């Protein structure tokens, strides 16, 4: 920290000034220098003036200045990240909150403009303390996880980071594993779930796993088996309420018409999707379709009322697992009824 010194002290501490050679080359005029300093702000001034003009001309907001400012904020945050060097802390799982938050504006564009996500019941997510979010899993790539994370961070009155559990397969992939760890995800291991819940985190699990995300288009919105109810047992042991989450819209982002199992086996993947666009269009085929999404957070199922020993009671665990599954399925049907069309 820089401490203010008295002039006397400053004179005492100061050493003789170094003689610095003046810069060679042409000297810039003061007006040019001022312009250089102001240059980063000029595009914003120009844009705001343009937006005012366009509003006067057309009567509506053609350029949304909020979006412009979000973009500026994103760039500013990236610069801040570059400046901090190695002087930051990650938690024991490798989660870097500042880094994650710098990307929130990118995901907000997807959330708000691309998939136009409508989120209901976000108040069911507790502002503090542990909870286990359980959601249906769909779409070939785990975009539903990112959207649930964005929903809780953006819509909740007390923004929180959701820590999703990922299949170990993704943790072995270059780039993806790095990105997932850094943004707070961890391996879908019961031990990790317990540890995260004991740290009073919000944990998101997809009990369907790859069976859910790799189902074909004709089976859409039909939930797969919820594992063996392991998530319920972990929630009971950790004393965390379960919050079922229904996601509608994620099934249509990649309509998977077929699964090339031999190719998947060759690459060590759980499935190799064939969609109308992938792999025919190459990387363009990986762009998800802009379906309309609904995310609904249901009211919590208070499994923490059971004593920790109840986790060994298979009857109870399977009954609770089915209850969670039915809640999610019902939420999906309700939201599907509300939906006017896939892309509307």
């Amino acid at each position, binding site marked *: 920290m820089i401490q203010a010194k008295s002039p006397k002290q400053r004179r005492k501490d100061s050493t003789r000034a170094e003689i610095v050679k003046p810069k060679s080359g042409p000297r810039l005029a003061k007006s040019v220098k001022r312009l250089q300093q102001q240059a980063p702000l000029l595009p914003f001034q120009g844009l705001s003036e343009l937006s005012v003009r366009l509003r006067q001309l057309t009567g509506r907001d053609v350029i949304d200045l909020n979006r412009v400012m979000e973009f500026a904020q994103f760039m500013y945050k990236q610069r801040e990240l570059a400046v901090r*060097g*190695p002087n*930051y*802390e*990650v938690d*024991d*799982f*490798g989660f870097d909150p500042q880094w994650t938050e710098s990307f929130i504006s990118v995901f907000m564009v997807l959330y708000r403009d691309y998939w136009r996500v409508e989120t209901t019941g976000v108040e069911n997510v507790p502002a503090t303390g542990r909870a286990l979010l359980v959601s249906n899993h769909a779409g070939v790539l785990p975009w539903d996880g990112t959207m649930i994370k964005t929903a809780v961070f953006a819509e909740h009155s007390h923004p929180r980071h959701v820590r999703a559990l990922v299949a*170990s*397969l993704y*943790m*072995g*992939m*270059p*780039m*993806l*594993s*790095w990105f997932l*760890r*850094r943004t707070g995800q*961890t*391996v879908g*291991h019961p*031990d*990790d779930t317990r*540890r995260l819940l004991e740290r009073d985190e919000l944990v998101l699990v997809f009990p369907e796993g790859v069976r859910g995300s790799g189902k074909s288009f004709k089976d859409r919105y039909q939930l797969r088996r919820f594992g063996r109810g392991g998530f319920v047992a972990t929630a009971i042991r950790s004393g965390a309420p379960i919050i079922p989450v229904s996601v509608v819209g994620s099934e249509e982002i990649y309509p998977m018409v077929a699964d090339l199992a031999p190719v998947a086996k060759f690459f060590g993947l759980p499935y190799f999707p064939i969609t109308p666009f992938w792999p025919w269009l190459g990387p363009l085929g990986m762009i998800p379709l802009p379906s309309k999404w609904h995310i609904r957070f249901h009211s919590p199922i208070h499994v923490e009322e059971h004593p920790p020993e109840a986790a060994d009671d298979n009857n109870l665990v399977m009954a609770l697992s089915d209850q969670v599954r039915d809640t999610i399925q019902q939420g999906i049907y309700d939201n599907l009824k509300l939906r006017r069309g896939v892309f509307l």
Partner: protein
Amino acid sequence: MSLQRPNRVLITGVSNPLGAEVARRLVPQVPYLFGCDVKDPISALEEMDFVHADTRHAAIGKLVRQLNVDTIVHLAVMVDSPRDERSIHETDVIGMMNVLAGCSAPSGRVRRLIVKSSQAIYGAGPGDPSFFSEEMTNVERQASSVTRDLLDMEQLVTEFALRNESSKVSVLRLGFRVSEDTTLARYLSLPIVPTFAGFDPRLQLLHEDDAAEAIVRAVMGGHAGIFNVAAGGVVLLSQAIAIMGGSPAPILPPYGRWIGRLALRALTRVEVQAHLADVIAFGSVMDCSRLEAEFGWKPAHSSRAVMDGLARGKVLEVIEAPSPPQEYELQVYLQRRRRDGRNGQRTASMLEAHK
């Protein structure tokens, strides 16, 4: 039995920096301290009796019985060594067998056994949990020979502990250290550090002082069981490289660990062992809650502090400067005189023998 304090302590592998530090800390706390190693000790301790002995030979068992020790600190375990797999196996597994044979002799008085193990026993992989508890060793993973050797070694120790319930056996799985010229330290100190493309794992480290302190506490406390010993918190690999002032170069292929190791050796002449290559790709973090609960102590330096220390170059300097050979000779002479003075009648014959 647990209240009994260690009386006659033997440290195997006392000539490595960790052994020297443990010996230095134990000297004021125990009445009789013996040390053995193949190499000359790096620091001269007057109060410690040093003997050249190799744990790979059965003679070590004889030494244990003859010295009548009640506590053995087995530090002659090679994990991070440029030696070939064969000799590492000999030292780790056969050495442990010989020491245990010495302990389990019918007339043996060994009551405490402290064995140095390593975090390398867990290996590292994409599907592993974020924290390794003591029981999460993976027998199926046979990727690294060091991991396999350590598993074998701990198996022997566990069997010994089951057969001899009167002895307190503690196994300390020490975290990765970056002092005293370890492979990890040399790797991280490179100006341009080749990393596996697309991976930025968490590293957990252990300060040299904390490692020595944990071993000393295990000797004095007599805690039985297996304990993970590692610093709190984690450092990302990229962070560690940046702290060291280097820059990461993600050029090693993400698949095929052995290609990466070959490339690394060709590019930088740092030979990274198989288990360490996995750690550099996937990271390995241990859960030290059992240590905290049983010892009532946890390592003082966090992983970040260890890394900062390495960057400042302070951890790198050896705890005590290596003494020149003549000083070692002098110490040996002084020790002999002291011993002879203790049972005086032999002095004359000893002097006779040395003429």
